């Protein structure tokens, strides 16, 4: 503006800065710009999950009375596979053996991948029932249930989950082994027991405010 005023002294009264015209120009640009920016928000927000999609993610009740020791069932909650395993006493014993926990990246569940009520050696409310989000923390594949020790996963394999995509391994509590691409343990979703054998996935026990979206890595 100042340059223009110098090069064209004839128009100085028009191009002088700080005039009423400048103010109107700037004000109109700013208001219009902010308005346009705000108008974009409905477009962006329309791409977020819709109300019915969110409603379909309401808590889910599962009756576990038919789940035999050693069995796993997979249920879908919020489009995510949830692994529910009834672990045998032998499998629970393996979870505590030091030659197994020594191979894990985060055997004490230090990383925020579970609610506080599952931050224990069995990563669950009741020791026998594991409830895990069955999505590999590496790149989102679904790990395979390989509960039998040994076999084609090597003699040292204690039983757990094997991800077919990039070879990540987890034990039967969803704890990740060291030296595999996955950085974190499998997440534990919020859940509670509404009766002795029925669990409700998606709802914390009274007194807990755990939010699955707050964890390190889903």
């Amino acid at each position, binding site marked *: 503006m100042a340059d223009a005023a110098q090069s064209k002294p004839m128009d100085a009264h028009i191009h002088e800065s700080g005039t009423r015209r400048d103010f109107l120009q700037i004000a109109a640009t700013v208001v219009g710009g902010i308005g346009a920016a705000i108008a974009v928000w409905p477009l962006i927000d329309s*791409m977020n999950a819709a109300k019915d999609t969110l409603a379909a993610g309401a808590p889910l009740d599962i009756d576990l009375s038919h789940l035999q020791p050693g069995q796993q069932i997979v249920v879908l909650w919020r489009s995510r*596979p949830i692994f529910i395993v009834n672990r045998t006493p032998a499998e629970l014993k393996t979870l505590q053996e030091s030659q197994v926990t020594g191979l894990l990246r985060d055997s004490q569940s230090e990383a925020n991948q579970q609610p506080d009520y599952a931050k224990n050696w069995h990563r669950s409310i009741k020791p026998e029932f594991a409830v895990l989000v069955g999505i590999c923390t590496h790149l989102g594949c679904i790990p395979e249930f390989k509960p039998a020790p040994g076999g084609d996963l090597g003699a040292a394999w204690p039983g757990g989950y094997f991800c077919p995509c*990039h070879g990540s391994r987890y034990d039967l509590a969803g704890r990740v082994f060291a030296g595999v691409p996955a950085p974190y343990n499998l997440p534990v979703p919020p859940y509670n027991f509404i009766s002795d054998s029925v669990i409700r996935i998606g709802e914390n026990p009274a007194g807990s405010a755990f939010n699955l979206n707050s964890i390190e890595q889903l």
Partner: protein
Amino acid sequence: MTGPGTQSQSKLVRWIDYRLPIFTFMRHELNEYPTPRNLNYWWNFGSLAGIMLVIMMVTGIFLAMQYTPNVSDAFDSVERIMRDVNFGWLLRYLHMNGASFFFIVVYVHLFRGLYYGSYKEPRELLWMLGVIILLLMMATAFMGYVLPWGQMSFWAATVITNLFSALPVVGPKVVGWLWGGFAVGNPTLNRFYSLHYLLPFLIVGVVGLHLIALHQHGSNNPLGIDRKGPQDSIPFHPYYTVKDMFGLGVFLIAYAVVVFYFPNLLGDTQNYVPANPLQTPPEIVPEWYFLPYYAILRSVPDILFIPAKLAGVLCLFGAIGVLFFLPWLDTSRVRSARFRPVFKWVFWLLVIDVVALGVCGAHRPEGLYIIVGRLATLYYFIHFIVLFPVIGWLERPLPLPTSISAAVTKTSSGPLAAASSVEKR
């Protein structure tokens, strides 16, 4: 030559041209547009890319008339196109393999620009617009691959959208926004379809800018020296239209051979299995044209305080992003590698490097593949960030020819030959 109107005999043409100078424009950009007389066949690939864009858009629009973007119907609608729709198989195979051929053409075009220094002054913006086109093409191709809703569609979408979860703080929010739900699902498929339809039109827009920038200074040429006068150039039409048509014929034969005889050669058989969110395929591999980037994504280990996953994502985008800076990273003022004795060979190292990355991207990151993948990723960045400026400083280029015409009319005495070629014209 510069005046208004046209030389056409037709009164109607002159009437229109006076009001809408479309004929003047075409004459100016085709007949009068001076093109270096020494362009080789590597210069065919720009127009081939334009033709591929048209083929993709035309086949795509007709496929869209038959396709259903819903998770429960998408896979079957593609199978219906293949089995029941008249010539549906042809449209789909042209479109599916067209993506591959589009990338072949664009990659050759890009490497041609690298070899002959087409990104250098005054063509920096021309080059950068090209990189933008490449990015748009990659996004379009990725979203198009999701539409058939096969196993690889679904899992590629899952893996690639999950990349954004590596972003600090906003990662999970961004991923949820991309999905429009709790995972890749129907909302994701719908928006990918919408964007897959939109992006090609954006590409057309950027191609328009690319051509405006091209015609401002004209094509570079294998010698990398500027045109100095009319003796150095020939009109684009008919000389290069004919040459482009010949190249197109050869190219279309190759395209047709794949479409008609090996239509699934470049595809993944897993994508003929309907998407199943509860069953990961044994190996998630992208289409071949993304393999080098995929290798970069998977090879990168933890870098200082940056976790491997985020570092991989940053390097993936950096691999394309670095191309924007080439005009300033290359410190040599000589364009063509013909006159750059060191650069000439280093160029081929890059080609080998990218092929090696492609091979690594096709295999699990284990054993030798992870070592080669890491070294090749490292070299990729060293090539552009270190070797480009350093070679420019240290290298002693060969003497440049005095002019294009002097170099192409290889008679004993350069200046005389140039003069005689002027007489011929």
